[in-house]
């Protein structure tokens, strides 16, 4: 499978969420930077992915991106627990109609910490070498 096909528009995601809910399947939406994608992200996504349902990831743009959004989207889409990846952009109100607020998670604050820790580790390694 070309996992890049998981990268969809906000409108497509809203339609997919609607279909999932109509079929009685749980849907979960996660927002975050994933910049860069780390093992901690994979663990977190596996933790919140709904069993038998669909996991949507809405990419956000961090204040100072390391990787471009398309690269981040392709990396996240390659994870097996992720079903759809939405690139940063205007929010489609239709999505909220099909994903309940309690099934929405934000990783933005956690991602900032992860990225800072990652950069710090790289700096520490550079100092040692």
């Amino acid at each position: 499978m070309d996992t890049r096909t998981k990268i969809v528009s906000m409108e497509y995601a809203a339609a997919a969420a609607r279909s999932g809910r109509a079929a009685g399947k749980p849907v979960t939406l996660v927002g975050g930077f994933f910049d860069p994608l780390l093992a901690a992200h994979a663990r977190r996504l596996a933790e919140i992915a709904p069993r038998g349902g669909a996991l949507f990831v809405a990419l956000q743009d961090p204040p100072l991106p390391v990787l471009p959004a398309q690269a981040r989207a392709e990396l996240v889409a390659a994870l097996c627990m992720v079903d759809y990846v939405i690139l940063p952009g205007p929010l489609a109100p239709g999505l909220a109609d099909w994903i309940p607020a309690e099934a929405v998670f934000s990783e933005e604050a956690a991602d900032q910490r992860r990225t800072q820790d990652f950069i710090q580790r790289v700096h520490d390694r550079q100092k040692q070498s």
Partner: protein
Amino acid sequence: MGDVIHALPACATLKHSFPGSTLTWVIHPRWAQLLEANPFVDDVIRLDRRKAGSLADAWRALRHSRYDFAVDFQGLIQSALVASIARADRIFGFHQSQVREKLAALFYSSRVRSTALHVVDRNLELAAAAGASTILIQFPLPAGIPEGDLPEGGFVLANPQAGWGAKEWPLDHFRVLARRLRDELGLPLVLNGPPGSRSLLGSVPGALVNISGLPGLIHSTRRASAVLGCDSGPTHLAAALGKPGVAIFGPTDPARNGPYGGSFTVLRSPTAVTSHQRRAHDPSMEAISPDLVFEALKARL
């Protein structure tokens, strides 16, 4: 704490504009005491999302009433969730480019793009978008309760701790400041902190230590001659009470998050960068010397 204090004028504005309405504020239990005796708040629902029982109670309370509209001042998924649970006819929030968690904006029926700089003014714009017609800038806060060990006369109250280390002024600087305040102005420096911070604050020679909860903090702030703080809740509390003081800023922007009103002098190093990075230290905070802070406090006293 800062989020609650910064929303007080918007809440007063809403209630003043809709005097016949019932205004419900959903708040974390830790900060609920800030709303005690608030004449603009009719109901308070305490919600700690991490406790299942609290969530269930809040859910029941929110579903018990019908709300004409909800306003999410915080811009977080959890605050948008509260507005969504309330099943209000309309939900007002900031535009996705101005919320802390962008997905929160999914749940707003009206997204307001604020043009104001300071968060208090932004919240007032949101209240106006929800239909408020008369702006009322008031911070109704409780009297507080005496706690801890405060000196009899005047004193300068400092709150050294913040949400993260990079926003804090080095503890060693307080030692120099305490000496100058005592020797030149005859004022003791009282370091205020929450329970558990005594050993840390007690490591500063020449300063008194006052340990208190939220009611004690309100009381000691009201009693203080002046307040010294950083980008933290106690500074916003003091500014809301109109206390004179000095605030030291580093990685956050005082134009947006600074003490509201004109009673505070804000000190920020020219080398400071608005990064919001949650690091342990920020060199721009260390660059603000105790002598500079002393002079700024002296001018405010």
